[in-house]
């Protein structure tokens, strides 16, 4: 196995995903086999290659600093699961 249960738990926490014990074991097995397959890329020497983050030769895309159309506050809030007036409402943090 490429991944331990502990690593699965660590990644699940980073990704903010709650997981049952059964799911952890399932993800451990499936992610391990996918990573073993992906490991074939490490057979290749890529020291001379630069990374491609993006395929287009576009840099520092900017636009004129002009006011355009925007959504209204009501439109922005219409899909909020919970709100208080003009605010998004969240559970307590501490």
């Amino acid at each position, binding site marked *: 196995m490429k991944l331990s249960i502990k690593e699965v738990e660590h990644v699940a926490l980073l990704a903010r*995903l709650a997981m049952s014990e059964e799911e952890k074991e399932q993800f451990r097995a499936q992610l391990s086999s996918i990573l073993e397959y992906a490991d074939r890329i490490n057979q290749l020497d890529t020291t001379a*290659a630069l990374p*491609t983050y993006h*395929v287009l030769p576009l840099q520092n895309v900017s636009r004129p600093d002009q006011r355009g159309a925007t959504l209204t506050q009501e439109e*922005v809030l219409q*899909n*909020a699961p919970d709100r208080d007036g003009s605010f998004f409402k969240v559970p307590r943090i501490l």
Partner: protein
Amino acid sequence: MEIYDLTAHELADLLRRGEMTSVEIAGAIFRRIHDVDGDVQAYVTITEDQAMETARKIDGERLQGRDLPYLAGVPAGLKDVLCTRGIRTTCGSRMLEHFVPPYDATVVAKLSASGAVFTGKLNMDEFAMGSSTENSAFFPTRNPWDLGCVPGGSSGGPAAAVAAGEAPYALGTDTGGSIRQPASLCGIVGLKPTYGLVSRYGLVAFASSLDQVGPMTKDVRDCALVLNLIAGHDPLDSTSAPVPVPDYTSFLTGEIRGLRVGVPREFFGDGLDAGVSAVVKDSLAKLAELGAIVEECSFSHAEYALPCYYLIAPAEASSNLARYDGVHYGYRAMPPDGGEYDLMEMYMNTRSQGFGAEVKRRIMLGTYALSSGYYDAYYLKALKLRTLIRDDFSRLFEQFDAIASPTSPTPPFRLGEKSNDPLSMYLSDVYTIPVNLAGIPGISVPCGFTDGLPVGLQLMGPVFSEGTLLRIAYAFEQHTGHHRARAPLGCSGSGESGARQAETAGRQGRRDAP
């Protein structure tokens, strides 16, 4: 031929000649939807009332002698990943089941301005992650050529709808093959444009450096016509390319003499179905007969494209899907009776309840590939490999005008056949993924049948060579006629109709949601 069998340009001609009204055409398409979508299950949301209203408006304008865009009044379907103002956009996910966007995607706005009559929102693998549409949180879509088979994915809803006559054409999206593979499996034309040719504004993001919107149509002329409508620079998408857009129909000459087509031997190796291989090889012989110079070539990093993609795409997805936090829009998990969640518990439960298994798998994979200690070995390594794959293509395009291959290694497979084995499902995209990594265009065009199921020929070209790809695809199609075949909507399996009806009944309620 029935109205629902016609292409968009044939319908446009009927409208122009005054032989039919848009209301009559839309009516025929909705009758077809009501007749067959219980079996095909392509639609998540049907927007009949809005469509008939648009159709009436267009008919009125035509009657007044207004000069309308060519495809005005022709119905069109949209993959449910494209934002539609006031019409829910689910992405095939519980997370967005009740999400109603306050704005239109640029491609939707462009089609709308051209008089498109939108029939509704089409099913897909959740957040476009999958190759069979079985990952939809709502129901699987079925292949109109054999209802026991998958339509491919992730744009399985659009592909099945077009193949079944439930939409004359549709827009899909393609991150690793999600337009081309379902187009191949459903016997229609599907084009993934050059990265940046079509705006991504309002396309719900999966992997931002790979995603593109493109046409899914019954023939190559429709493909060119729809591309004409959606291509072009958009200030709302900073990765949109500021390039001039030609009239793509001007490339449909039927003439391909002297064009050089490379055939990478690596795309005909292990894992390619013998029936698919035979049909594709016949198609290559046809291209040669038509005067193209078809030669074998080598794509040296072919075997690394799939693992490279399955590190880069999930890495980008894990970052993009961090926005589903139960705060701004979408699903929020509620604490058990009388209890109270703190913020962290709300996040964790919202995301684990709102996302399906494949989405979680890719978020986990991407988070791992980006995490401290693994970033260099996986993510950065994959980005360097992406450069080598681009270089392979650049070298090939010094020699060839286009590269040809099968679109999918297999014909349509049966529902459930691959759903428990993620890796075997990922292999469905082995021939389509290199195109997205390199940012180049690719088209799948119907090229025949194996055991009664459709096979697609994929053509790939240098950046912004859509015209050349359409030219080759058009000449091929005109000389073979496979695009005129229509799906029988039958089922080779048995004992499934009961389950199908139960699923359909469950869906009717959801359709009434906004």
